[in-house]
């Protein structure tokens, strides 16, 4: 639990950070440090240079305008959880943020670090997939590009981020009046990370589903959209039976690889992908009050 020696640099701007990455091959940026530092301490990561971006002001904060919520990559989970504007504009963001790890983790961990680390058990990838978020990425020379969460996260601890690129912000649409959203998570009792997480955004007209955006994570190497379930649900009345029948199809969308370990096998996680989606839909659509 003692990190090997590394050189420490502190960047004040995104451009400065990218310069440092460009001139030090193999360098790693550090945001909240909640995933990077454990890796260093276990000596599983041995970057020669660590670029601390914790002080880069332009990557912090939340702005809501024109139906869009822009969250700087260095914004902490706690800042998202505790913002009343976020809660009003998109309750799912606040709810998901509040369910991450524990208070200490939420105080340090950042949304950008979480996405860039791409732990399959993380929550943001799943939630932002269901919310159709857009990620902003900056590269050398001020080059910018955008990516959807599923384009960005490709597998366990693997993203399409280049060695000299930095994730700068996340853009999330404000939820419309007819949208219902929910995140159901089976948390690992040790870490709080998702064993299986299901995020749902449902468009409703009365009691009928007019469209749905559903995503599952934790069970799979990278978050997936549940298009079969979305299709099965769209146009249907949101009853217990219809939700149960639709979510039973989740299996079709999970892909070939399901994660498993001694706590929760692949077989179980596969089944839970449907169950958690069902639970999220029940809650989001308040089936109870019909």
């Amino acid at each position, binding site marked *: *639990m003692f990190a090997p020696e590394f050189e420490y640099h502190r960047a004040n701007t995104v451009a400065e950070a990218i310069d440092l990455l460009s001139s030090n091959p193999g360098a790693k940026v550090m945001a909240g440090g909640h995933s990077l530092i454990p890796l260093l301490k276990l000596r599983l990561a041995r970057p020669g240079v660590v670029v601390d971006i914790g002080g880069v002001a332009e990557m912090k904060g939340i702005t809501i305008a024109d139906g869009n919520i822009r969250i700087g990559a260095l914004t902490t989970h706690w800042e998202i959880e505790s913002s009343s504007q976020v809660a009003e504009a998109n309750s799912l963001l606040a709810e998901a943020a509040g369910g991450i790890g524990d208070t200490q983790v939420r105080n340090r961990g950042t949304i950008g670090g979480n996405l860039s680390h791409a732990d399959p058990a993380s929550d943001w990838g799943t939630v932002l997939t269901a919310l159709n978020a857009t990620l902003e990425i900056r590269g050398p020379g001020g080059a910018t590009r955008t990516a959807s969460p599923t384009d960005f996260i490709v597998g366990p601890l693997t993203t399409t981020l280049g060695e000299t690129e930095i994730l700068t912000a996340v853009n999330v649409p404000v939820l419309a009046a007819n949208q219902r959203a929910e995140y159901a998570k089976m948390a690992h*009792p040790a*870490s709080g990370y998702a064993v299986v997480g299901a995020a749902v955004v449902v468009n409703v007209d009365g009691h009928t589903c007019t469209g749905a955006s559903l995503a599952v994570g934790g069970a799979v190497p990278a978050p997936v959209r549940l298009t079969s379930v979305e299709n099965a649900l769209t146009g249907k009345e949101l009853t217990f039976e219809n939700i149960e029948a639709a979510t039973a199809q989740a299996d079709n969308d999970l892909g070939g690889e399901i994660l498993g370990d001694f706590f929760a096998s692949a077989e179980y996680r596969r089944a839970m992908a449907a169950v958690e989606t069902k639970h999220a839909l029940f809650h989001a659509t308040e089936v109870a009050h019909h």
Partner: protein
Amino acid sequence: MTTRIFGSGIRRREDPRLITGQATYTDDVNLPGMVYAAILRSPHAHARIRSINTDAAKSAPGVLAVYTGADTEGVLNAIPCAWVVPDSDVKAVPYPAIATDTVRYTGDAVAAVVAESRYQAEDALELINVDYEILPANVHAESAMNEGTPQLHEDAPNNQAFHWVAAGGDTDSAFASAEVVVTDTIIQQRLIPNAMEPRSAVASYLSSMGELTIWNTTQNPHIARFVTSLVTGVPEHKIRVIAPEVGGGFGAKIPVYPWEMITAFCSMKLGRPVKWTETRSENYQSSIHGRDHVQTVEIAGTREGKITGIRSVVHAGMGAYLSTAGPGIPTILHGLMYSGPYDIPNIKADVYGVFTNTTPVDAYRGAGRPEATFLVERMVDLLANELNLDPVEIRRRNLIPKFEDGFDISLGLTYDSGDYQGALDKVLEHVNYEDLRRQQAQSRGQVTGNGHHDHGHDHGHDHGHDHGHGHDDQPSATKELIGIGVTTYCEICGIGPSQVAGAVGFGGGLWESAIIRFYATGKVNVFVGTSPHGQGEETTFAQIVSDELGVPVDDVEVIHGDTDNTPMGWGTYGSRTTVISGAAVALSSRKIKDKAIGLAAHLLEAAEEDIEYEDGKFFVRGSPDRSQSIQDIALMANVAWNMPAGMEPGLEASSFYDTPNFTFPFGAHVAVVTVDVDNGHIVLQRYAAVDDCGNQINPMIVEGQVHGGVVQGAGQALWEGAVYDEDGQLLTGSMLDYALPKAHLLPDIETLSTVTPSPHNPLGVKGIGETGTIASTITIYNAVIDALKPFGITRLEMPLTPEKVWQAIQQSGKP
């Protein structure tokens, strides 16, 4: 009217320093010229060491020395096992501080580096090159004795560490003639103790004096000194062990480990103070683990539900070596508990200790007794199930009736006092048992019937689907079953008479001593040989003295933890500190009072027989204005200007207390759980505990001990479990995978008590440190199995993860 200080829930005086960061733990000790040790640990569970090359490490920056087993062999003696249970063929196999030719678990020490800084020491570890010949590993207690299983020690054929049998009555005929017999296999999974403070030692050897001082995070500094002397060869009177603030032990800080012996060795070699503090990962690998039993159990009874016999064959994993108290835990502290609070005429415990390529196993909160209570209470529930009896009813039919002074059980022990029915009645009334059963019937109707599909449920977004409380009036769209667990227990505490210690092979005595010293200012120090580390005796011992002698409680300070300024004692474990050490404090208080009466009589020019004592004042009978306060007496005794003939100066007393018998706390616990049938997720909704620890010195501390204990026991039932793979790699190597109980996963714990004083203890106390852990694992487990009754499920393995519950439901073939 004054309220008595004995029995009042005053605040713990320990807490301010602990919660403001002013406490000094071993790792906070920094000495001039101090250097740092780090230990290289085997990455393999079983391997022969072909060669070790330390050249690169030795020349790394800051490195002062690198030592291997070749350096310590013959200098450090083997780590002794101090509980060699008699008539059990205990194989006290060699346990070297640093492995010489073979490593036997991942974590076994292979080398030690000493460097100017901790980072330099850690970096140098990576430069040591060990050539291992990997051997097949044996990781399961259950199969360790099977033919063909890899052997750990030449001296222990079939990996058998010992074989112990305890019996009372005649189990063979009881089972042969039984009307009903129920069997089960119970696995007490291996647990990792997880004290908040990991292990740490600072050793400083003064060659000019031949003196060794070790700051050591231990529960028993005097035992540590004794064993350190045996291992290092430094004479006992030249060793000083200081246990400064100790951040929790739970049994894991009873043993003397190789690590502090290595630290001492390094200091003796280098002539500089050396600090060693383990990392959390090291702690998981190489501080002792707890439990690890595979129990095959049978219970015999009549059709009316009278228990006629219980017997077990237990395979208890000892790990790779015998830790200090290892063999005593699954034997003496386990098998002798099989009668529980019941009158069971025929009992047999047949226990094999086995070696496996895993971390050594020793005492962990409850130590043998949770494993026994689990076994008994599980079998009682299974018998009830078989006979279609309510779990409460079967217990009522078997509980020992109320007794105040002695009840002999078939295993030969004499319980001190008990009112088991009383505790059961109290907890059932508190939880409204009948109503709980009604709610349960309703939940079963909902899940098995069709009325479940019309209510949203309060789906917590946070961890573990915490539905919160009070959701029961709001039917849920998910299918939840309610389960109720009821347990009655009786346990053995106040680990006990020295004569018994000798008879059962414990390598020491079990008495305690206490010195009370009054100063001229009337202030008091109490010196004890036990070593509290969270249990609160700095507060409760002051309460005892204050109560006995009428000094304000804040005028009494309790000193412990340093072998140089405390009298001999055997340490803090087995819920014995208040029972044994507290009794010694009471006896010394009474000696002080006797002396004070003599001096008061002299000063008041009265006969001793005419002196009365009340509330800190000594006065002449009939003339209360002719009096001396305890403070007046303390002053006069200390200046000694006017002592009666033959009376020594000073106001100080020393007592040695050896208990005539163990104490036997008891109680009844109820757990209420919900189980989500969709995903197998369990929520502990309620936990109510009635515990009887005899007289309570400080009810708030009693409550705190029960809280912590219940939570720790819940951990075993629901979350905790050390997992090794077949190669002996610890898969639960950190808190990322090893799930400790979290506050948000637990309900408020409802604590109640009854008071049945121990007839033989000077204070009437029994011990409360472990009751929660002893009862709660099985209470919660039984509640979960009870919830799953509609599926016909009668057993699951712990921890009760959602998948295990879900799989069992899937396999039950029921909807």
